[in-house]
């Protein structure tokens, strides 16, 4: 596994070495008001084991880029490889787990049956399903809530259940689209720490969309700063904090320096349209 502080090698194409390798991706949506250029000439390589955040104002295409990686959107130009295969193959072979801003649990299923759902779909046998549900509910601290229905849990607990669901089939890549955006700051801090611990334990590659600068700096090994109209990458910043960092690092000068660089990047991106 790569050291977390290794820089992203922009433009290098060596399939297989990267969890995500995007080259010259553009995506134009056809809408009633004409064409909208959502992504423009995106070049991005994400090494295995990295924790990469996409940050930018709304409309900068960060979610769209994540959806392109997940094969939920098809780029109009460019190539993208996930673990050395096309994004469609990666989706069909279940290379990644996707976590949305809303937990999107199925209200008629208990928590354990929600976590079990992808396992049922992928045809795991009953004993293995049971074992994994227990393991991953324990990992996200939800043991004892197996038989509860989603509405009986708080928003933070629901989101943790949805993380357990994404982990249950053990994908190497986690795609997270503002997973904690709807939660309050105390819960969010707590879940950020848990997510870091989980990433450190499992060695997964995480791609994380956020619009919170402290969240991005705290979590990431790489921060990808994006800017709107058209959505493009304007800066890639490395963070070399230790993998077992704690919330206290947010007070350090180094942290504030990186946060400052992200902020100025976002500001310069914004000045294009004003």
């Amino acid at each position, binding site marked *: 596994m790569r050291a977390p502080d290794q820089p992203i090698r922009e433009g290098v194409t060596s399939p297989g070495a990267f969890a995500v390798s995007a080259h010259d991706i553009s995506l134009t949506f056809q809408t009633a008001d004409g064409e909208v250029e959502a992504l423009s000439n995106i070049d991005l390589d994400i090494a295995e084991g990295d924790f990469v955040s996409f940050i930018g104002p709304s409309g900068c295409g960060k979610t769209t880029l994540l959806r392109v990686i997940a094969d939920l959107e098809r780029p109009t130009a460019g190539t993208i490889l996930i673990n050395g295969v096309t994004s469609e193959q990666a989706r069909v072979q279940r290379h990644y787990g996707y976590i949305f801003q809303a937990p999107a649990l199925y209200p*008629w299923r208990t928590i354990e049956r929600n976590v079990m759902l992808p396992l049922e779909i992928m045809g795991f046998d009953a004993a293995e399903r049971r074992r994994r549900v227990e393991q991953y509910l324990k990992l996200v601290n939800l043991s004892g809530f197996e038989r509860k229905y989603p509405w009986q849990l708080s928003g933070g607990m629901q989101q943790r259940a949805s993380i357990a669901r994404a982990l249950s089939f053990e994908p190497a890549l986690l795609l997270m689209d503002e997973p904690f955006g709807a939660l309050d700051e105390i819960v969010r801090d707590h879940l950020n720490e848990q997510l870091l611990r989980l990433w450190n334990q499992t060695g997964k590659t995480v791609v994380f969309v956020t619009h919170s600068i402290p969240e991005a700096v705290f979590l990431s090994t790489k921060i990808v700063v994006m800017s709107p109209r058209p959505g493009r990458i304007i800066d890639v910043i490395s963070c070399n904090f230790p993998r077992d960092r704690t919330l206290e690092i947010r007070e350090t000068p180094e942290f504030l320096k990186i946060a400052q660089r992200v902020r100025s990047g976002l500001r310069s991106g914004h000045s294009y349209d004003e």
Partner: protein
Amino acid sequence: MTRSTFSAARPAGIRWHPTFVRFVPVVVIVLVLIAVWYVAAVLMNLNLVRGAFERDDTPYTTGQLIAGTMRAERPLLPAPHQIVQTFAEDVFGWPVTSPRSLVYHGWVTLSATFVGFLLGATFGIVLAVLIVHVRTLQKSLLPWIICSQMVPILAVAPIVIVVLGAIGLRGLLPKAIISAYLCFFPVVIGVVKGLTSPDPIQGDLMRTWSATPAQIFWKLRWPSAVPFLFASLKVSITISLIGAIVAELPTGAQAGIGARLLAGSYYGQMIQIWAALVAASVLAVGLIGVVSLIERWVAQLMGARS
């Protein structure tokens, strides 16, 4: 000491039992309606009764006149107690196999309702599934389905019954088909709505797991549609009862609630018509009750908030 504090804190007014409070408005409305009905019965039957007295040249008082309106044999508007009495006699006064028993007629209509409801609901669900999964069907089928409901059923029913009768189908099945024809529509509309109700991100999730269309249907679309299905079924089951009754009218069927209504109007037996109407509404209430019970049971199985 505590005791005295409590009694001091108690408000001065009388406390009514909650059940009592809940039923008071309903009971008041019912009593008002019954009173209005009695007044209407007196006014509507007055000429009838006065005519009878004058034909016989018998002297009469206002009291006798009013009393007469309450027990006329062929009133224009029967008094509520007359309807209740006839209803009770027709339900309990005869063996259930007798053609004079309302239970017998109720069962004839009910069996056609059940078969029609099952046919119609199944047909409606199948159509809805097709419409949701086949794009071209949505454009080609839906307008026809809507048109089918614009045709007055009273015009279609005799055609169906005569045509089916000509090919040897009589009795229950033609009635069930007319009933199904009426009741499939709410099911189609409700289930189409239900099958397309899942949140887009729940569909996206299925896609990220590369689920098959069958898995998406059974694990996402169908469970999402269940609450919509039950809402439709409650509408649909009363419509299928109406369909079965209407289907008994055009051919002058020998048995069923519809046959009772028809016979009542032929012979000017208003009380019999009203008793048959009461029977029909008792059936309708019972049918909706059964569907609601099943709905509540299914909702519990699906983890709904109680």
